């Protein structure tokens, strides 16, 4: 439990660092650290397949996408950053109120009742669940991947046409 608590605290701390740091590149690296800590948590929770996916896709691929997007675009100047972040604490002073309200709701078991424990259960293997029980999901994933590929191709094609 100590390990899990340490990992959870590190997860929230690195997420906070990712959103509060001024450099975009540091934000992307912070997000990768969040992914790595989440991977460790998934391993602890006996979900190795999801953990491997999280590590390879989220900590690897998505970080590469973010870093390449940041390097392809212009960095935000210091003045723009000051203008953007000038009033954010004043504007969002009510966020701690939301956090406290959320905790009170969680405490009263309103937001999300805890899932029931179903007891000993001869559960299917992950492979069986993915390939037999949730075959439609796999079809959906293939369609999603194709959608993403075509979306990116169309976007870049439009960009090339504008150059001409």
């Amino acid at each position: 439990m100590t390990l899990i608590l340490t990992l959870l605290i590190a997860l929230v701390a690195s997420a906070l660092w990712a959103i509060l740091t001024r450099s975009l590149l540091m934000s992307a690296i912070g997000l990768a650290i969040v992914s790595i800590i989440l991977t460790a948590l998934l391993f602890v929770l006996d979900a190795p397949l999801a953990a491997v996916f999280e590590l390879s896709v989220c900590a690897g691929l998505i970080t590469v996408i973010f870093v390449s997007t940041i390097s392809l675009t212009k960095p935000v100047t210091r003045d723009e950053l000051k203008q953007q972040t000038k009033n954010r604490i004043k504007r969002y002073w009510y966020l701690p109120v939301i956090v406290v309200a959320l905790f009170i709701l969680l405490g009263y078991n309103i937001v999300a009742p805890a899932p029931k424990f179903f007891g000993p259960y001869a559960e299917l293997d992950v492979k069986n669940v993915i390939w037999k029980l949730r075959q439609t999901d796999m079809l959906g994933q293939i369609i999603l991947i194709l959608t993403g590929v075509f979306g990116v191709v169309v976007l870049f094609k439009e960009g090339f046409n504008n150059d001409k």
Partner: protein
Amino acid sequence: MINDSISMFWTFSIFIALLFVCGFYCLLVTRNFIRALIGLEILTKAVTLLVIIAGYTSNRLALAQSMAIMIIVVEAIVVATAAGIVFGVFKKIGSLNIAKLRNLKG
């Protein structure tokens, strides 16, 4: 055993709520495209963790894992397409500031 996993679920849910608030805060405050995407990512990670801990608590981990994999695939596609859109918008308006996107404003 049952009480242990239920108390673990509540411990996790507190931190998941905090992670959610981090993501929402990022989405609300920022005017930078890429940072908004990072906020969205943090929200998705909170959902992934919630699905896995719900599966762990209810003893349906294989099902939860398959759903988590689905979420991760969706997350990757959303980020790849959004990064393409960010790049396209940057080529059009020369800035990453969301406030400058006023071309579609009626």
